[in-house]
């Protein structure tokens, strides 16, 4: 059960933290239609995060931070709001600060392609809860990837400026791809091994790139620290600021009801 819990934390944290970055876009998108779409994607991911964190807590209650006796804070929120940075298991691509709309599109294309491949594999998972979360998530992720893919092609073939910005965005995002498919033992044992999915993900990205007329940048992997990256709790510098904002109200009220 502990390994399943750890695995649910990984997928749950990816969703939670990436949703946090996406929700920063609210009221800032290029037009209302995109504002609504981005909020929608963030909402889907918050929903997935809630289910996955709850599953993690149920599978291994020892993971759940302890609050003062009688605190009404539910497990999903204890995990989201009362863990410190080093206990989060999300990949760094989920957490890096937002750039411009091209960065949003490039990152979303990669994140949704990757997560969709994982969730597709998990639809048949032995754990019925994980399987159900995956089945719902597959439909959501397909929409996210579609949104990102259409915008990716639009920006690639739109204007010189959009092409230039998309090129810069790819340079920022691509170095974080190897981390997505560097599998941990837990993923291999109880989840979908992302290393096995690397080819499949690469094929999808190549297809989008081909339609867009772009080529993948020559981008070596972003190093971790002594080999540790997001899955091992080694995050980027901005992550502590993201958490400070995410958690500030909840932590001020450990006995609060919301």
């Amino acid at each position: 059960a502990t390994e399943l819990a750890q695995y649910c934390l990984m997928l749950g944290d990816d969703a939670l933290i990436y949703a946090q970055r996406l929700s920063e876009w609210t009221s800032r998108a290029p037009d209302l239609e995109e504002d609504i779409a981005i909020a929608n994607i963030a909402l889907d991911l918050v929903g997935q995060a809630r289910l996955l964190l709850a599953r993690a807590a149920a599978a291994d209650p020892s993971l759940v931070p302890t609050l003062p006796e009688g605190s009404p804070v539910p497990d999903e929120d204890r995990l989201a709001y009362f863990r410190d940075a080093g206990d989060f298991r999300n990949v760094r691509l989920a957490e890096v600060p937002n750039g411009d709309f091209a960065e949003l599109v490039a990152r979303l294309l990669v994140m949704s392609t990757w997560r969709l491949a994982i969730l597709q594999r998990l639809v048949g998972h032995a754990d019925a809860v994980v399987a159900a979360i995956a089945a719902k998530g597959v439909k959501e992720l397909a929409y996210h990837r579609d949104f990102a893919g259409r915008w990716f092609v639009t920006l690639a073939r739109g204007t010189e400026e959009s092409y230039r910005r998309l090129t810069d965005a790819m340079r920022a995002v691509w170095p974080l791809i190897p981390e997505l498919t560097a599998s941990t033992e837990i993923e291999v044992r109880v989840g979908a091994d992302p290393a096995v999915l690397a080819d499949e993900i690469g094929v999808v990205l190549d297809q989008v790139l081909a339609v867009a007329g772009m080529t993948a940048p020559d981008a070596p992997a972003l190093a971790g620290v002594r080999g540790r990256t997001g899955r091992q709790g080694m995050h980027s510098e901005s992550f502590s600021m993201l958490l400070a904002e995410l958690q500030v109200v909840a932590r001020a009220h450990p006995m609060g009801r919301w």
Partner: protein
Amino acid sequence: MQVDQAPLEEAFEATIAGNDRIEPRDWMPDDYRKTLIRQVAQHAHSEIIGMQPEGNWITRAPSLRRKAVLLAKVQDEAGHGLYLYSATETLGISRDELTRRLISGKQKYSSIFNYPTLTYADVGTIGWLVDGAAICNQVPLCRTSYGPYGRAMIRICKEESFHQRQGYELLMTMMRGTDEQRAMVQESVNRFWWPALMMFGPPDGDSPNTEQSMAWGIKRHTNDELRQRFVDMSMPQAEALGVTFPDPELKWNEERDSYDYGEPDWEEFWHVVKGNGPCNAARVAHRKAAYDDGAWVRDAAMAFASQAGRVGRS
């Protein structure tokens, strides 16, 4: 020209008198069109600017459930803005032009959004009091004389009622929490009560456009009528919640079968309307930054669409 216009005017007046809808293809007086553009655009702008004070707390929502609720609500506001800009476009003006009028300060939005959100309780208070006041203003507009506006309002009012209940429910939950949370709710209500009352506009005596707007059926009640309705509606809700309003003159008037209440600070009201409220500059700057930062994206989308068109035709 006057000769040609007379039957059109008659038909227009008959539609209004019969409480029927004017539709985009129908003839309408220039002033009616202008007044409507101003009113519907201001309403659309209010939805869009209104995303900011609540959006300010999305990243800090204290539970994942509340984060989802708030994200969905702010998303709905963008949706309302979308319908209303579409309704305005049927009057012959583009969304882009309307946005430019907003960020250049030529068109207004509801002054309530020039007040800051200072705690998470404000998310609840905005739902309860601000959306509540908006509903009082808007329900009569479902029967407004201009078709696209009236239909947009029907959909919007439905969602606004839902938001109002959600806001009230948040406050209710917080009141069942800690002492700090209860104090936070009361402090928030103290701040928003007077600005909420001002949402109905100046007293009837100082509201010069009301008469014409009522004649045209694009306004259905006076400011003071709606304000009274709001006070009467809110008092029992406050009691149920366990909060008070910061008005010593608030009390039941048996004779009028209504609550008496004190006078809002109209000097502050006009100060804020004129652009000097706590957040006016920040709200417009935020909107302008989003519009300016998005220009290259909209350009790219247009360029791509026109290429696709060329490819399709070739």
